[in-house]
């Protein structure tokens, strides 16, 4: 079985995130890391490969340095990594990014495409749906348990009130939640071995992606202005000496919120 995992390099959790006022984009100059739920997707792909055979390819659209983060997936055990990187792709929104990934996936022809549920920077949680739509493939999201038998996948999907169990024929697209597994730590052997695994950085032209359908040219949204969130004001810190509940009620009443 051929599994492709779409991943994203996001600012490391310890980096203070900042929007660049001139480009209106997230400042990505600080340390990067693989998006947290993408680690769950990689882990699930490795388990499926180990159970069913086949290969795990990692796919990403991003700046060249994103390969450092893709290497973590290789160190965990993925077989190869493909990074689509091109100056013309910078600033791609959902529509443009989904076009780029769908085109690259079209060439790979995987049986299963895995995504992490959402990225920790943009937090859109829709990219997988857009990619599945472009590929005209069934899609299951928020998956907390995944099994594959024959040519059919069964996903246990977390909902507000419990679980939906959904089956779909392969090829298909699945977005996993962080409840699906505990991602492994890459072993030292895995880390040392990652450098000898295939790692391709390809341009838009190499990947067969039309330049005018990605980047700002291919994006359907425009960021008109960015501003930092307003400073929190009017905070009250209560130390609980047993009367905190009463004090909270008092405070809310005083603010006429209850």
């Amino acid at each position, binding site marked *: 079985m051929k599994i492709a995992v779409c991943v994203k390099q996001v600012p490391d959790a310890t980096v203070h995130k900042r929007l660049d006022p001139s480009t209106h984009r997230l400042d990505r100059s600080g340390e990067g*890391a693989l998006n947290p739920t993408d680690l769950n997707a990689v882990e699930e792909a490795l388990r499926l490969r180990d159970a069913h055979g086949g290969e795990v390819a990692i796919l990403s659209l991003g700046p060249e340095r994103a390969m*450092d983060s893709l*290497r*973590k997936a290789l*160190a965990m055990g993925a077989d190869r990594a493909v990074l689509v990187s091109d100056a013309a792709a910078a600033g791609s929104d959902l529509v443009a990014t989904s076009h780029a990934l769908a085109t690259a996936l079209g060439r790979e022809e995987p049986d299963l495409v895995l995504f992490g549920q959402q990225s920790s920077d943009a937090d859109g949680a829709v990219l997988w749906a857009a990619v599945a739509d472009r590929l005209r493939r069934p899609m299951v999201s928020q998956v907390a348990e995944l099994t594959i038998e024959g040519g059919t996948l069964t996903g246990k999907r977390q909902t507000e009130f419990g679980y939906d169990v959904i089956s779909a024929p392969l090829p298909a697209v699945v977005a996993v939640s962080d409840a699906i597994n505990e991602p492994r*730590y*890459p*072993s*030292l*052997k895995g*880390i*040392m071995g*990652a*450098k000898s695994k295939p790692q391709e950085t390809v341009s838009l032209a190499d990947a067969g992606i039309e330049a005018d359908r990605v980047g700002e040219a291919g994006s359907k949204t425009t960021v008109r202005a960015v501003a930092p969130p307003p400073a929190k004001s009017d905070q009250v810190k209560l130390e609980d000496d047993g009367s905190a509940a009463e004090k909270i009620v008092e405070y809310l009443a005083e603010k006429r919120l209850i």
Partner: protein
Amino acid sequence: MDLDLTSEQELIRDTVRAFARERVAPVAEELDREARFPVELVRELAELGLMGIPISERYGGAGGDTVSYAIAIEELTRIDSSVAITVAAHTSLGTMPINLFGSDEQKERWLPDLASGRKLAAFGLTEPDAGSDAGATRTTAELRDGSWVVNGSKMFITNAGTELTWGVTITARTGEDEISNIVVENGTPGYEISGPLHKLGWKASDTRELTFADCAVPEGNLLGPRGEGFHQFLEILDGGRISVAAMGVGLAQGAYDLADAYARERRQFGKQIGKFQAVAFKLADMAVEIEAGRQLVSKAAWLKDQGRPFALEAAMAKLYTGELSHRVVNQALQIHGGYGFMDEFPISRLYRDQKILEIGEGTNEVQRMVIAKHLGL
């Protein structure tokens, strides 16, 4: 000149950092309180390949460089010294004598279990009456009927008595003016291991006194040529100093992390105490020293990886980081005020764990002797 880590070294740092935070930090306080050796954590570390970082892949190690090894030890110490010294003593002291001086046959026989972390190794140099003056070793090994018959005792030996321990390499007097290194496996008749020693810090690490009474080991357990033991242990200690120096940086960084977080959270006189210059300057000084110490460790590790002489730099790094960790942990506890004196606050554990960094693997005074000697004094 390039001060960047390679992407592999960065990945090793991130992995060990995550492991230390997620797996070690939640149990560190309990392990310390119960003075319990973390056998489960050692098994997990072994699975990740962290028990044999600088040992060749041929023998089941990770084949990593010294820089990577130092980074891993630093990141572990940042969270817990007991776990870090377990790894460092096993690698630099327990496994390294066999790796450096063992014959091919000895390496084939012993290294795979050690480099993979399935078993732990110890190194027995210090004796009740031979500490800094390690050459004054009194333990004897006499060749009799194809066996080395060992008599004597060893003191403060890390990893010697855990359920994973395979054995110990000891320095012993094999002649009038002759010291050799000999391997004694656990279970050898005449080899006795004391109960765990009770310590100020490093409570979850295993420390024992060893006694040998007519303990006969095969003649083939001699490491390298007979009489080379003195030079061998000096070489072992040179390399080991890099890992203990990395512990100094890690401990200081861990203390800084705690003090920094506390200074942002604790409010007195109506504001965060970190906003007071008295506290902010302390943190600034700590940050400077830690960075300087880290560079010294990196330099020593890098020199070793280049195959260049590194003994002077390793001694400098060990001395400097031992002393800087003392200053940093002291100020970090000071910033915590009364809470820092309480067992519930991790800084109190780091404070206790720090002192040995100025004593183990050569005291500050011995480091100064080594450095002065290298300077031709």
